[in-house]
């Protein structure tokens, strides 16, 4: 079943066409990769899905609901969570608090409830802390609970972002270069983690530069170049696509 449908979406910045008429679908329960050379518009596509940018034209349908132009927080609430390419944690807050941010949208205590703290609010708060802790344990950061986010290693910061995203209880998890800055060992662990996430029934859409990782875990891959989709298919199909090979040759030199 289709979970996310990106339909004829375009976006330009001051005359520069960043995303041009892109179409693709993500099926529920799969891992999909979005690849392409630097500046191909991958992150822009993510930002369009998550509501950080509004598309100039086209529609984005999530679980049968048109989410085009909704604000990011509403989209999160509907079940799309993300991580950022450049890590955006709450650096001066504790690891647990970072994950609690993700729990926020599944809680309901308002100003008055927070001030006067009736029983249900206390229970909700307790449950949230427990959930947050479980997510930390899930990504393997349970020892860092009260450490400040900025004191974590780069790889652990990426994991913390994933934990925060998972705490929003998403149906679709969008990972923007999750292995960026990770060493070989950490990347291996990440692959296992993504597998675990998938087992929880969460669909994953990711951008990644590490080709071996993409080829290993993605059931379907979409290739962008200059804001346009140039190929779509399984890892095998993509590897054999002449347009992709051409685009890649230029890209390899850049790296």
């Amino acid at each position: 079943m289709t979970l996310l449908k990106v339909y004829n979406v375009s976006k330009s910045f001051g005359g520069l066409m960043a995303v041009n008429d892109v179409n693709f679908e993500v099926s529920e329960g799969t891992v999909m990769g979005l690849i392409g050379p630097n500046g191909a518009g991958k992150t822009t596509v993510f930002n369009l899905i998550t509501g950080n940018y509004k598309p100039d034209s086209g529609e984005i349908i999530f679980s049968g609901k048109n989410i085009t132009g909704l604000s990011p927080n509403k989209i999160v609430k509907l079940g799309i969570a993300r991580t950022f390419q450049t890590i955006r944690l709450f650096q001066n807050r504790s690891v647990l608090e970072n994950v609690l941010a993700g729990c926020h949208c599944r809680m309901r205590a308002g100003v008055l409830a927070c001030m006067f703290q009736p029983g249900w609010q206390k229970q909700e708060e307790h449950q949230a802390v427990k959930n947050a802790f479980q997510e930390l344990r899930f990504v393997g950061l349970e020892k860092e609970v009260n450490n400040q986010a900025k004191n974590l290693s780069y790889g652990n910061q990426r994991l913390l972002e994933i934990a925060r995203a998972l705490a929003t209880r998403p149906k679709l998890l969008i990972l923007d270069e999750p292995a960026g800055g990770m060493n070989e060992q950490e990347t291996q662990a990440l692959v296992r983690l993504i597998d675990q996430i998938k087992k929880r029934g969460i669909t994953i859409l990711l951008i990644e530069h590490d080709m071996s990782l993409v080829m290993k875990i993605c059931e379907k891959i979409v290739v962008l170049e200059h804001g346009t989709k140039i190929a779509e298919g399984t890892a095998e199909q993509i590897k054999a696509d002449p347009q992709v090979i051409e685009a890649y040759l230029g890209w390899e030199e850049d790296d």
Partner: protein
Amino acid sequence: MELFIQQLTNGLAIGSIYALIALGYTMVYGVMKLINFAHGDLFSIGAYLGLTFLISFGLVDKVGAPVAILIIMLMVMGLVGLIGILLERVAYRPLRKADRLAAVVSALGASIFFSNSLMLIYGAKFRVYPHNLLPKSYITILELHIPVVRILLLLVSFILMACLYLFVQKTKTGTAIRAAAIDQGAARLMGINVNKIISIVFFIGPALGGAAGIMVGLYYGQVNFLMGWLYGLKAFIAAVIGGIGNIPGAMLGGLILGVIESLGAAYISFAWKDAIAFFVLIVILIVRPTGILGERVAEKV
């Protein structure tokens, strides 16, 4: 119509003063991202220093008013610039790595300190500049009396602005200032001595403020120890209207603010003048959240 044109020239005159002070604000902001609330008081210091020099050295008798004013203006600019450098060293440099608001509070403290020092040194009374230093003649254009001084005021403001603009755009130091304004870290990597650049900026900004101070003293004839606060606030508004950190923006913002004030007051109400100016500022910012010439920086996600 005559009223309109007359008020327009009134607005441009006061606007050029705002613009001159706003230039200093905006330069400091551009490089340091600091709202220097003490800037208005540096302007007052300029006005008082100018008064002291005019009275005490007898330069006017020796070399004549125009030359004396020029010399004194340069002296004042130099001295106020030095005070600016000192201010940066003492009150802002230790806070460069701290939260931005810490420096704002430090600036407010410095402002209180400066205005009260002026009060203790010069007294709380209004001080009066010597008269008869400036020409008293008029130019009459289409039945409009425009005092020559007023044209001189505009002229001097524009010359100073133009010099600053050329300095920042055309010289090597200017390029370094612009580089430091965009990214201090990167500028440092390019071999720019950022500390030196900041000192230069803290010399030029206050020096222009000091020049504005002496001009206000000469033109309007009176100075007081609290005037810096009001002028400083107006200049801050002017800088924001134009897009803070942007040099042509400060000029534009100053002139626009002056004109809004005089036209708004003339056609709506004088008692509501400042409220009208603030209201227009708010509307401008709602429509253009970074001011008229400010760059819209879409935050990178």
